């Protein structure tokens, strides 16, 4: 396969490392290196997508506002990207930077749009489309040297569909995601990008009424086990286990009518890296202006 000089340059010229994308999330000096994959794993409402917004904002914001000025691709398989939410987070970050730092040039709107133009969004509705889209993204990667981050929300979106369509053989069930993982592995090697992907926790035990989800506290071990195909598991370098504190508690408060009042929900992301075996827990809460670490 031939490539032009510009393509070669874009491919080989070092993309920006995202090791410092969010130091509060990863163990000391253990941020995601180029070509590494971070998996955010957790049940619904544990701040996975919110964390992605946080990282996304950090990447697309101008350096003057504390950003990294790199291009980002957001692969939305859950149709969960809420542009309005993203814009309000970006807005608050820009405002915060403006109030502390020097007055930046250009109006808010123009600056905002400029930030948003660093973002590419793809919506995928099936695992085969995801595979084809990853192939197609290769052209974007080779033509945009500024592109350093790929976000996938979520990698597990088509799990059940694939399970059913694959019939009885496990290999067939996992075929497409394996192919996606292999391709992703190649893209990571060739283009040295960083990938963050969310993965929903599913309930796999067949005990008890299956139509009800269970509280996080009693069955946490059951929730934590990885279930996606082996090629994907091998690809993951860092795993962030997301959880929400007092979640079960809150629900109980709703049902039981207790008068207990909690103003904020505290989210925790526990990071374990396969390379260094180091781990770190970080807590944050979600405010109108996005993720705030504590």
């Amino acid at each position, binding site marked *: 396969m031939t490539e032009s000089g510009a393509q070669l340059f874009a491919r080989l010229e070092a993309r920006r490392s995202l090791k410092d994308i969010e130091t509060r999330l990863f163990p000391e000096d253990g941020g995601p290196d180029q070509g590494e994959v971070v998996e955010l794993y957790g049940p619904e409402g544990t701040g996975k997508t919110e964390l992605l917004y946080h990282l996304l904002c950090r990447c697309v914001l101008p350096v003057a506002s504390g950003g990294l000025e790199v291009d980002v691709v957001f692969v939305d398989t*859950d149709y969960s990207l*809420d542009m*309005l939410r993203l814009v309000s987070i970006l807005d608050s970050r820009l405002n915060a930077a403006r109030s502390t730092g020097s007055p930046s040039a250009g109006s808010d709107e123009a600056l905002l749009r400029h930030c948003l133009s660093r973002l590419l969004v793809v*919506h995928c509705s099936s695992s085969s489309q995801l595979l084809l*889209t990853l*192939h197609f993204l290769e052209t974007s990667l080779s033509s945009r040297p500024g592109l350093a981050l790929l976000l996938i929300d979520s990698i597990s979106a088509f799990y059940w569909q694939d399970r*059913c369509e694959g019939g009885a053989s496990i290999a067939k069930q996992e075929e497409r995601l394996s192919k996606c993982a292999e391709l992703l592995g190649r893209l990571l090697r060739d283009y040295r990008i960083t990938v963050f992907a969310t993965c929903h926790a599913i*309930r796999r035990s067949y005990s008890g009424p299956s*139509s009800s989800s269970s509280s996080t506290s009693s069955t946490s071990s059951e929730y934590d086990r990885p279930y996606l195909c082996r090629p994907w598991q091998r690809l993951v370098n860092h795993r962030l286990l997301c959880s929400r504190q007092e979640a079960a508690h809150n629900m109980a408060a709703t049902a039981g009518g207790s008068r207990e009042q909690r103003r*904020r929900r505290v989210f925790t992301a526990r990071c374990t890296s396969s390379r260094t075996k180091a781990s770190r827990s970080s807590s944050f809460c979600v405010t109108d202006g996005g993720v705030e670490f504590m």
Partner: protein
Amino acid sequence: MVVLRAEMCPGLDEDLVKDLRAADIKTVEDLVSSDTEEVAQRCSVSYKALFAIRRVLLAQHTAFPVSGADLYEELLSSTAILSSGSPSLDKLLDSGFYTGEITELSGGPGSGKSQVCFGVAVHISLHLKQSVIFIDTTGGLTAKRLLQMLQTETSNREEQMEALQRIHVFQLFDVFSLLDCLYSLRAGRLQQASVGGGGGSVKAVIVDSVSAVISPLLGAKHNEGMSLMIQVAGVLKTMAKDFNVAAVVTNHVTRGDGGEVQPGLGASWSHIPRTRVLMEKLDRTSVVSHSSLRSATLIKSSRQVTHSPARHGAQSGSCQRSEHKARLQTSVGSERPAECRLQHKHLDSAEPKRFRQVSLLCSTCGER
């Protein structure tokens, strides 16, 4: 999965498809994932031709990347916030149901889910003059009740009839007919519905209830049921986004291990709706005969910070609603794109929204 066929793109003829099939390349994915050079040799076609075919097929079947700025622009011009007809519920939902996403109302029997759905349908058809698709899977929808609600809004017989014309009702009782209906709506019947009955484009698709058809499928060995559930979710999501309609679904509730009330359909479904509202009946506080107080709590939202619900906060934000009468922003705001942005600016500066819970007074006298 797209099977390779002749004439799918220029250069791909009958013979080549046969050759490719012999080389175990049957689908577009196979062709795209395989090594072009190797395949060219095995099928004795020119590398250039095969490369061109691969590129065209890829472009045809991929999801196209859109710039964030363009997406935002598009969203601002196309997003509509549909008022639910109840000011307190609107407040809870950050001014109403947003098009382009799925909103879930969950609650036990008699918690007012269906009544809210009827109210929304009536409000959209009568006041916003837009069409509504109402998919009824429980047989709970009666034209009489809709008319009754309309009659409290307007005494003009013609207006009532026009509004009823704009509510398209489908009564389906299993998941396959639901999927069938949703797919055909997505394939173009949605626009037909817009052109047909009484004008106004379809702005909302209401499924009452989605759990009634899905929960029977979720058994011990629930692969197939899960897959069907995710399919329903998928078609709803794509329809909401592509046609810019608000999808409203209702769900039942179960009790978790700790005895707490939570929406049904399990962990995999919990990721599907972008906004979830838990509705409850407040038994103790029945105010008037035939009426009882219902509370609605926001338990998931992608836009608002959901704080832990505090029970005593319920009354502070309460607003009585009888016979769906109180309400209506005077600006019949079906399309309010410009305000979206303002809304969010407002959200940042507004006082911390601590109690995302309101009470609704939902009359049931109409049921009798």
